[in-house]
């Protein structure tokens, strides 16, 4: 891999921590240096433990230190998950044997193994989520602590499932350890970049069109579900959205945009902007090499560094940029809408969704308000 300036996305170790820290009843131990511990601890805002190993443990072995930390945690009754960082991963120690006397889930997910999605998927597969055919309801998938929209997505999905009279199964990954072996047989997706593949997938919820299909399908697999209640709300809200977008288009040209996100959110943003505003999608910079969430007709590439972000913005000169606060810092006077972490330099308290009906509405609210602010600013500049 060529060198990379100001890398934009967290490593596999952080992804594994984001998965495991969402499961109550599991104590997550980062086996590595204090530097490796502090980043996920501050980013995820979840309780994590660390071995904070020092040079002597690298030279003479880290068993005593690891067992010291695990030994104390074992008294809490929680299951312990140990995530190995770069240095312990190459020390050649048999960590599995070292912790054999405890019930430990060992996740070998060093930073050099890849990006956050790799570690998240690995940790989730080791948790072995299993379906209980007798459990009613639908699981909500793709809730990752890294995602600033995760809490809002789950809240919105709970609302829609309740509207359809369907109980919520298990939220992955925001659940208890005990629930992991009792998943409902069906699963719907929110952010598919963090998909579990657990349960039969009934569809995604990013955007009105997938939402309609998903609730239509839910009506087929769960006959007692009242999918019509949700479909009727979608129809009503979509009408309001179309009205707002038409009103905008009566005065202004569609915005040109460049989008930076993982493939799921990038695909959602591009589709929604194209469909309702006829936006000019000039480029998509993907945070992950994964492209499954993205319709292939949109121009896209994998973008890992801030200099490439700058290049794309300068080349395409869009009206609007979507991304994180990294993108915002190189956006200049163009409009900006936050779509992926980190979203720093602004206060965010309420859980906002991207999934579901309110997710699309809230996203398009941001887009239209930003576009109109831009137009007013431009008009004031020229008058």
């Amino acid at each position, binding site marked *: 891999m060529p*060198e*990379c*300036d100001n890398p934009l996305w967290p490593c596999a170790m952080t992804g594994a921590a984001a998965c495991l820290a969402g499961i109550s009843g599991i104590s997550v131990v980062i086996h590595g240096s204090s*530097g490796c511990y502090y*980043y996920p601890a501050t980013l995820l805002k979840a309780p994590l433990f660390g071995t*904070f190993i020092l040079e002597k443990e690298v030279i003479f072995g880290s068993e005593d230190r690891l067992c010291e930390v695990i030994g104390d*945690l074992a008294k809490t009754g929680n299951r312990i998950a140990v995530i190995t960082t770069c240095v312990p991963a*190459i020390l050649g120690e048999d960590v599995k044997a070292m912790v054999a006397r405890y019930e430990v889930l060992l996740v070998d997910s060093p930073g050099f193994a890849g990006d956050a999605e790799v570690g998240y998927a690995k940790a989730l597969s080791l948790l072995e989520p299993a379906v209980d055919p007798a459990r009613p309801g639908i699981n909500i998938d793709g809730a990752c602590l890294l995602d600033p929209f995760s809490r809002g997505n789950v809240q919105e999905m709970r609302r829609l499932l309740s509207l359809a009279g369907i109980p919520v199964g298990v939220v992955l990954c925001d659940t208890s350890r005990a629930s992991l072996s009792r998943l409902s047989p069906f699963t719907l997706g929110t952010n598919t970049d963090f998909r579990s593949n657990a349960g039969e997938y009934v569809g995604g919820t990013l955007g009105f069109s997938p939402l309609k299909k998903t609730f239509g399908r839910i009506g087929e697999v769960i006959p007692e579900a009242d999918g019509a209640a949700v479909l009727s709300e979608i129809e009503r809200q979509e009408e309001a959205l179309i009205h707002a977008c038409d009103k905008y288009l009566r005065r202004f040209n569609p915005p040109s945009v460049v989008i930076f996100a993982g493939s799921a959110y990038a695909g959602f943003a591009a589709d929604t902007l194209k469909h309702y505003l006829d936006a000019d999608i000039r480029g998509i910079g993907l945070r992950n090499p994964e492209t499954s969430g993205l319709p292939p007709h949109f121009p896209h590439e994998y973008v890992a560094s801030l200099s490439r972000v700058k290049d794309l913005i300068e080349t395409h000169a869009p009206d609007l940029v979507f991304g994180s606060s990294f993108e915002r810092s190189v956006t200049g006077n163009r409009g900006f809408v936050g779509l992926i972490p980190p979203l720093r330099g602004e206060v965010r308290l309420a859980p906002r969704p991207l999934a579901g009906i309110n997710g699309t509405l809230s996203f398009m609210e941001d887009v239209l308000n930003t576009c109109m602010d831009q137009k007013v600013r431009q008009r004031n500049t020229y008058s």
Partner: protein
Amino acid sequence: MPLNTSPTPTSRSGGCTLTGALSVTTHVRDAVSIIHGPKGCAHHNFSLLHATGLDNDRAVIPGIVSSALLESDVVFGGEEALLRTIRSACSGGAGAVFVLSTCIVETIGDDVEEVCSRDWPVPVIPVPTAGFLGGTFHHGVNNALIAISSLAGPVEKDLTVNIIGEMNLEYEVEENYAEVLRLLHSLGLPTNIRFVHNLNTWDIASLGAARLNILRDPSLVPVGEHLSRIFSTPYVPSFPSGLSGTLAFLQAVGNACGVDSRRALEIEQALQAEVLADFADIGDQRGVFSGPVLNGECSHAAQEAADALHIRVSTDPELPALPVHPSVGTAGIRRMLHRWRRSLHA
């Protein structure tokens, strides 16, 4: 529990050497800081520096490049990746290149110094870091300052003062600098450079010109000693802390620079009396100190202010909390007293 989610300061939780060094090297604005290691280490630090910059109303992008080591580099060695990264950084017009190693690179044994010592078109300076293998956050800061000082040569002395080792990640970094600047101004002393805070490579050339170095805090004494050996510049070991500490600071700086500090001391004493009079309304009350860093220096400064206002400090957790943070100068004490007032009147 040996370590919890809020570890107390120990050698284990003294922070990452790499982060400490980057908090310094990324403030040389025309330089590139190469992190020789996996991309994740660079992302962690870039994200932290970016967030801190936003908190300090500074939207400057730190110049960080990762050699982006993969599993194959870890197995077969990462020196080729480092060579490629330095070559790329040198060709991009950087004024200097700082090379910072990581835990994993130290463990696999890459010879970073040898790669840096090759013939490069701009100064390529290795900074001894290596995450936990290199020490703590403070070691990183000190190592970076000492490494960067190699960009300065001998120059003639003048009447100025250098500010050494500001905590660039500190939320109040600019306010603390402004307070020191105010005190130096009262002594009639101009500043030379803020080493290292928001400057360019060519600014560093004048490092040796100052008559005095003022260190941000005593953990920088090894840096003060190093600069004293190289440039024969004496140092004051810390920014002023507390009311009496501020007066002592004025006197020490005046003495070191051969400046009569009596008038400045009179003005400062009058200002301190004025500040205390402004807070007479919170006098004769009771409270308990609270804060994440209750070290001797900041506890002493807080106790002195409490005594001056006849506030009785107890350990009773039922009493109102009196927030204590490291404060610089009389202005720092004033800001702390505003927070005490909010708490005592709550």
